[in-house]
């Protein structure tokens, strides 16, 4: 299907992965797309591996199930690379499991994309991008919350949503929830993620 994209997020509890998927879904809806956003996790505990998924489409989305063949994988916590995330309720496999042959990986790391390509053992047809989301979030928000810089990076790399929609939706929906400082910090984090994401 044209204009149909499936995304998988990998992170750990408390890193904002579920919120990131929610924000992406809201932005898609803001643009008039059909969307889904949903998490998958085991018994709640801080630091446990968490997956979240998005579907965005120009047509109605029928399926309700995990994304098993993502076209985009976001690795919010690079320590999950190389781990078998099976066990509990998850299906077997690591962060690269099932990714499409022309899939895109975006990794939160200060290292170069070429290093990540090696570490992830990617196919030559797959693309990899990196962004130092951890440091961006500490600079802009004052704490380790790599989710919003990752959203900025995703917007730049894939173009599936407009950067302006990302910001507008966030400001519209969260100005009541967050203080102005936190709100602006997150907007800066998205901007820097957008600007600083690197490809090979």
């Amino acid at each position: 299907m044209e204009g149909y994209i499936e995304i998988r997020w990998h992170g750990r509890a408390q890193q904002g992965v579920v919120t990131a998927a929610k924000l992406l879904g809201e932005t898609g809806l803001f643009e008039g797309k059909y969307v889904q956003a949903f998490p998958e996790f085991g018994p709640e505990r801080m630091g446990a591996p968490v997956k979240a998924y998005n579907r965005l489409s120009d047509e109605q989305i029928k399926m309700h199930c995990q994304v098993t063949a993502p076209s985009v994988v976001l690795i919010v916590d690079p320590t999950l690379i190389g781990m078998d995330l099976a066990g509990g309720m998850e299906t077997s496999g690591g962060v690269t499991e099932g990714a499409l042959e022309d899939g895109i990986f975006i990794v939160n790391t200060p290292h170069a994309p070429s290093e990540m390509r090696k570490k992830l053992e990617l196919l030559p047809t797959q693309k990899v991008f990196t962004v130092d989301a951890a440091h961006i979030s500490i600079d802009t928000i004052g704490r380790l919350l790599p989710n919003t810089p990752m959203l900025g990076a995703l917007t730049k790399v894939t173009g599936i949503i407009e950067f302006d929609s990302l910001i507008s939706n966030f400001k519209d929906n969260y100005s009541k929830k967050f203080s102005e400082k936190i709100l602006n910090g997150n907007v800066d984090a998205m901007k820097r993620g957008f600007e600083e994401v690197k490809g090979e």
Partner: protein
Amino acid sequence: MKRRLLTGNGAAAWGARLANVDYVPAFPITPQTEIIETLGSWIDSKEMAGRMVTLESEHSMVTAAGAAAATGVRVFTATSSQGLLYAMEMLYTVAGWRAPFVMVNVSRGLSAPITLEPDHNDILAARDSGFLQIHAATCQEVLDSVLMAYRLSEDARVRLPVIVNLDGFYLSFTREPVEVPKEDKVLSFLPPFDPENIRFRASTPISQAVAVLGGGPYSYFRYETHLAALNALSVFDEISVEFGRFFGRSFDAVEAYRTEDAEFVFVMMGSFATKAKEATDRLREAGWLVGLVRPKLFRPFPKEHFLKLLKGKKGIAVIDQNISMGKGGVLYTELASVLYGSLDDGPVMASFIGGLGGRDISSEEFFEIAKVIRRAAEEGKAPPPRLLYTEEELREMRKLQVIANAERNQAGKRVGKKDE
């Protein structure tokens, strides 16, 4: 109408809010808790009227719900899995009271082994209780079902509690665009509960409890409950027409997808049926004449709808997301009892069990199921039931067992050394 991004739990809470419920007895359990948290926050911020009380167990919660409904107020509650089972004694009791209210169940597989992810053994354990059952497959349907459920439950010809079921994770935590109808429109579709003769005033205490009865009067009340549940079939169809008129969305007792010219039909319940819908499209692209039939109403069982939709089909594959130990799939068994003797030259039926504890059912498996049912139709013989499991899953399982055994032996050695 503005669409909001809501989880299935959020949609359930919106249903209760729009229904203007008076009373919400509550007890938390994953993956349902978000429903009562949401209602709690609305009641706290005065965005919603009504009173919420947290009870010490689901058993007390359902007792409170039934007792409140028996005084003529509108009641909402929610639970899941082990919680539903813990309340089971009172499920039968409040249905026997003919107390009309709505309970949401967020399906989650039962212990043991324990899981958080969904299958339908929890909700199907309540099959014979007297609660009616509506099964949702999308977040929109969750909200719509709650509104439908109040109309059905409170109808004077029915007067039974209704469970609205949604699958844990796949709906409960999945955010989708949902149309939240306007309050005034909902008020016209679902006016305040008119309890007629059901009322309780503290100044004029009455007893509604029934004394111990012998078989004759006991049977009378049990039959009455059954007949009221059967009344709900035509009442549901009436309400469903009205629902369409009010909200511009249909809400039929049974959904039929691409069945008109289909030779083979999948039958499934709940959100996992959306995978069958997608697989139907893929199979159609590959030249197969397949379709999907999905009951939204499970109690009462919409027999006539099924007969109409399945007449003239060559084969039916029932995929049950539940397992009755020592028998097999519950929906398969129920459907077989409906079709047997009702259709001349009836279709061949095949039973599949899948999706237990949230196990995925892949597109390839639907292709395999289609092949099995086609072969069965050609041979005119029902195949043995199948438990869906892949070679890869079995290999992973064996690996886990080897690790577990090695760890156990290792632990045994350590204990042995200590003893020496």
